[in-house]
């Protein structure tokens, strides 16, 4: 069964450093998402990506965040200058169309020291 993969599983970084979280969505999906979850709590929407551009973004997704789909396969989330409060689980998800469910990756645990 196809699945969404994410790397790394755990990233530890110093405050102010840049991090790139990587995701490989399911190949025939059209919509891509990043979510954040702090300490097993609410799943917070960050950004959605469709047709090679951002379609929606939340208030959390400020200028420190960016997304790319550089090669038609990988989908990356970059945080330019990490803050302590960026520590969370980051989930990537992909979706084929609105009638179907999202497929989530296993997540990357980001720890900012």
């Amino acid at each position, binding site marked *: 069964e196809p699945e*969404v993969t994410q790397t790394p599983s755990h990233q530890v970084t110093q405050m102010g450093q840049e991090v790139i979280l990587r995701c490989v969505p399911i190949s025939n999906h059209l*919509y891509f*998402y990043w*979510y954040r979850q702090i300490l*097993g*709590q*609410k*799943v917070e*929407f960050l950004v*959605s990506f*469709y*047709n090679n551009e951002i*379609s*929606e973004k939340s208030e959390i997704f400020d200028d420190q965040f960016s997304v790319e789909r550089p090669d038609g396969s990988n989908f990356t989330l970059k945080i330019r200058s990490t803050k302590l409060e960026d520590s969370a689980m980051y*989930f990537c*998800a992909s*979706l084929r*169309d*609105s*009638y*179907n*469910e*999202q*497929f*989530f*990756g*296993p*997540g990357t645990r980001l720890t900012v020291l």
Partner: protein
Amino acid sequence: AQSVAQPEDQVNVAEGNPLTVKCTYSVSGNPYLFWYVQYPNRGLQFLLKYITGDNLVKGSYGFEAEFNKSQTSFHLKKPSALVSDSALYFCAVTEPHASGGSYIPTFGRGTSLIVHP
């Protein structure tokens, strides 16, 4: 704007008893409704969905949910709970934009289901 409410942070049930995890939603049009389950240190896994048709939908692991338009609810149910059902459950709603191009599910806060042996 669409929204989802899961009024219970935690639901406790004894193994073998029926369980219900509540979800209510608000959308301006017709909703697409989803339930996901999250086990510790894992991503969200799809359980079931309502798009259209029969109000009672059946999903994975013996779960089902009933879409109630008048009460704007989509409660998750299972006739007989298992200890292994203990996990975090998320309800989500989306409403396709008329222009068709952006589908942003809104998730509830999650309900922790604890099934006691």
